């Protein structure tokens, strides 16, 4: 399951539509290892839809999204899993503790990062054994982001990762993104606060 860290992520002539309405068309984008693309745009312009399509969760209306030449839609259909997606929802089980949630994802992705280390980095030490249901919104978001460390993924697709995070949380996201780039990964981040991540970005896609 070890993902190739130097993959090429390419978007060609992409068109998206929702409910019969065309959201965007003719989008081209190419990310080489170590690059971050920021996606910005007003509410409802299609950032989330774009990220889901890049992840291979939905099929584009036209065009292609490929990772090393393989369409991501087929990757999502179970070949291998080099793509990590973090959407508006957090993907956590309310009744499991922070630690259990992290361990679950580690097991599913067959990754041997220790949950304890990630929890320490997230500064969630005192709620590690508390069910997620009792966490504050920001603590939940941190846990969800922690799951990123549990996936050996080449491409990170993050939808407004800074939501509900305080200043230290935002710093953490920045640090993790740089580390991911340094490892040769690439990433697409949708955000309403491009200024907070502008230093890292190599491309800015304005929808």
């Amino acid at each position, binding site marked *: 399951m070890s993902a190739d860290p130097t993959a090429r992520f390419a978007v060609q002539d992409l068109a998206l539509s929702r409910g019969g309405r065309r959201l965007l068309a003719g989008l081209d984008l190419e990310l080489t290892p170590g690059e971050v693309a920021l996606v910005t745009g007003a509410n409802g312009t299609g950032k989330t839809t774009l990220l889901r399509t890049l992840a291979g*969760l939905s099929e584009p209306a036209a065009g292609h999204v490929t990772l090393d030449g393989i369409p991501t839609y087929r990757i999502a259909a*179970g070949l291998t*899993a080099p793509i990590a*997606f973090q959407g*508006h929802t957090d993907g956590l089980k309310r*009744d*499991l503790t922070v630690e*259990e949630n992290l361990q679950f994802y580690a097991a*599913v992705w067959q990754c041997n990062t220790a949950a304890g280390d990630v929890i320490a980095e997230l500064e969630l030490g005192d709620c590690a054994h508390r069910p997620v249901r009792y966490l504050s919104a920001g603590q939940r978001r941190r846990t969800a982001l922690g799951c990123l460390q549990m996936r050996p993924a080449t491409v990170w697709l993050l939808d407004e990762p800074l939501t509900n995070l305080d200043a230290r949380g935002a710093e953490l996201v920045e640090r993790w993104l740089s580390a991911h780039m340094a490892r040769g990964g690439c990433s697409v981040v949708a955000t309403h606060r491009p200024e907070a991540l502008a230093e890292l970005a190599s491309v800015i896609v304005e929808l």
Partner: protein
Amino acid sequence: MNAYVTLFARDLKLALRRWSEFATPLIFFVIIASLFPFALSPEAAVLNQAGTGVLWISALLSSLLALDGLFRTDVDDGSMEQLILSPTSLSLLVLAKLCAHWVVSSLPLIAIAPFIALSFYMPVDALATLIVALLLATPTLSVLAAIGAALTVSLKTGGALVGLLVLPLTSPILIFGTRATDMAMNGESAAGPLYLLAALAAFSLSLGPMTAAAALRVSVE
């Protein structure tokens, strides 16, 4: 395989944390069973006849009832997206969830069924057949219900639509199940219907998870 075990364990754990949700169908089962004699005349002969039916209908309903939420919580909280993107095949993960659900909802029911059967004056010799028949039939019921749940997961309409989709498909199971039980009660060998139940279980367990996975993939889109 590892992911299979993990998901199985997680779902079991979640179920035990919310055990009441899973106990509800069981209580339903007991209520229905204890209530039926009021509707029928309490004569042994009639009860005996109706007992099989009540047992099977309760088994059917209780495996359908809880299954509605099998995927819905995962879809709502975004876990399903993560499972779809995971390196393990979605069919296998669906199977894991199914198995966990079966252990939590059907197994206790099977454990309690003999007592209910006895209270309906079922002969003791027939109990073994009843248990085997339930063991063979409930997996198919769960698979069918899981397919129904996967098809309707992105709809707000919950249990009722699943019922409409799935209940007609379950009639063979009911027929073979009651037939096996009836034959055993009459002292005949119930091998015929039991083999059919086993065949249906094998068939549905091999194709069902794939079908449910396909439905989930479309629904989450």
